[in-house]
């Protein structure tokens, strides 16, 4: 083979090929990583959205229940229930009261008291 023909042979420069392949791989991997991160962000954002929705739902349910509890425990409802006979109020019987000091009766000093503990409180 003469020298001219030998010159036309294009040798493969492995080092530069590897370099360019690495650059391409790096760019490709960067692109894929970007897409992966972006997808991750979307997925996380979607999760946040779902969690936000759940929190909002739970908060609303909580407020609804609180309003219902307030309604059921309201003075109007309690009075209605007493009137209907569902609940009733009975005076506490003397035999179930544990006293630290004996009560002062109105007959002893002639003073009416609305509660037996007034003497102690004073």
């Amino acid at each position, binding site marked *: 083979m003469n020298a001219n023909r030998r010159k036309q042979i294009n040798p493969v420069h492995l080092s530069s090929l590897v370099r360019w392949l690495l650059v391409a791989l790096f760019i490709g991997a960067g692109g894929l990583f970007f897409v992966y991160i972006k997808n991750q962000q*979307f997925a996380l954002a979607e999760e946040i959205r779902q969690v936000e929705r759940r929190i*909002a739902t739970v908060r609303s349910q909580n407020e609804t229940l609180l309003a219902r509890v307030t309604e059921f425990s309201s003075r109007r409802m309690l009075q209605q229930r007493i009137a209907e006979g569902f609940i009733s109020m009975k005076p506490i019987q003397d035999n179930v009261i544990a006293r630290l000091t004996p009560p002062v009766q109105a007959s002893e000093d002639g003073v009416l*008291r609305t509660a037996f503990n007034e003497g102690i409180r004073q």
Partner: protein
Amino acid sequence: MRWTARTRTGLACAAVALVFTAYSVRLVELQVAKHQEYAQLAAEKHTMRQVIHARRGLIFDRNGELLAANVPVRTVVADGSHVKDPAALAKVAAPYLDMKEEELRAKLTSGRKYIVIRHELAEDKALALWKALQDAKQRGLYFEPDAVRTYPNGQMLGHVLGFLDHEGNGIQGVELTMEKSLRGRDGYRYIEHDRTGREIMLYRGQEEPAGHGLNVRLTIDMGLQAILEEELDSAFRDLRPEMAVGILVDPNTGEILAMANRPCFDPNRPGDARPEQMKNRAIVDMVEPGSVFKIVVSSGALNEGTVNEKTSIYCENGAFAYGGRILRDHHGYGAMGVHDILVKSSNIGSAKMALMMGDTKFHEYVRRFGFGERTGIKLPGEIPGLVHPPHRWDKLTITRMPMGQSVAVTPLQMAMGMSVIANGGRLLAPQIIRSVEDSDGSVVLNEPPKVVREVVAPKAANFVSEALSGVVGDGGTAQLAKVAGFTVAGKTGTAQKVSPAGGYAQGKYVVSFVGYLPQENPRFVCLVMLDDAKVASNLNYGGLVAAPVFSRIGERAARYLDLVPCLRAEPAAPLALRGQKEERTN
């Protein structure tokens, strides 16, 4: 030209360069020159300003009992451009929305971007509908958060609390006067959504959180309010007056402890109420106060030194000719002191005290007691009443006004006027708002008691107070106002009802009793007023109609407040002994 390889290559390159230049020019035009325009278009299509609704503040009584709350609901809206199959969507959604399928389908097929389908859908129903839509793979319906105001106690305290209009603005009561604090400030966030209408969280933009409304704590004590309302209800049922008003005030601070009117309404359903049911008559109605007004002339005359504790005034044996007319007392009395004039409620004695004071001085005391001016209570629609200046008085006014005629006052002014006597002579501004608090309970605004003015010296006030306890004692006009175990002070009022046609309505009376207890250290002032109670004319007096209502309220309120009785008990004789005693007396 020779089409050499070089020429052809050059032309091809030039053509490609031209094409790319054209693309580049277009790209620059789109990205730079028309950036603003297209960004705006994109934003309009995908970006929206989402409102974050502020939660309205709650209303509590002084002990923390909840009086006004919010129930979360949803407003169901549809985006016509997202609805693929209106018929299928209507079939799924109609049962949850309590709508007819055809009606819903008609709404959905309009194709508009924002169609309000249903207001105030309960939260649990909205959740169930959302799940049903997910299962049926239907889209196009969206749920916007909203809330409705609810008043757990119904009619109780309705006039004070007020209510909201359909846009959530307070239009009566505390809801109106405290609107600024209760309302809060809506927030917002800019969001982008995809073509299905779902928010793209990643592109969530600027956000301003909502500033929730502040909570308002009233001076009202619901325990006392319940007592007042029950007794007022009972009186309204038994005596069938046109209206009834009850007020409980702490005379030492001016705090309104309870306020009730009949007829009343349920603020949960304001649409069902007639206008006259919605009037808070304690502040928007004016009446002639009747004899309650005698406390003004007596304390004024004592304070000015016009009379003293020992001054004796001749009461003309029940008929006093003045200004061409005869002023009469219920019974004929001779000479009486100020104490007895109040106890016996002598019109002539009161008129003579006013004459001794002179019209200017008497008018000055009427104004110093707060009559003729708004009390400034934080409730809407308060009127000042009507007190004419002396230059507009006729000859008889000076004798009529001391007994509560020729003057018009609101029930609240009467209660605050009596508080002047109860607290030793100071006029306090009535308070309905105790504090304003944020959501974690920190006090943002506190309302301390406010003394408007010193009306009379404590000595004069105490003397009148002593006399007013005689009104409830034996020989007084309000013996039925007694409360077992306590010294009660108070004054009855019986005024002829003013006719809208002019003059007085025959046989119609506005009767009232304003009193307080314990007289030595008053804990509350209570006003009871009944307009045109359906009782016989000869029984329609404040002492016979309003005083017993006061007595029942006073007794229950004293028990509720755990007041220590100050009077010695009057031991009741055992039944067996009582029977023997009765036999002997017979």
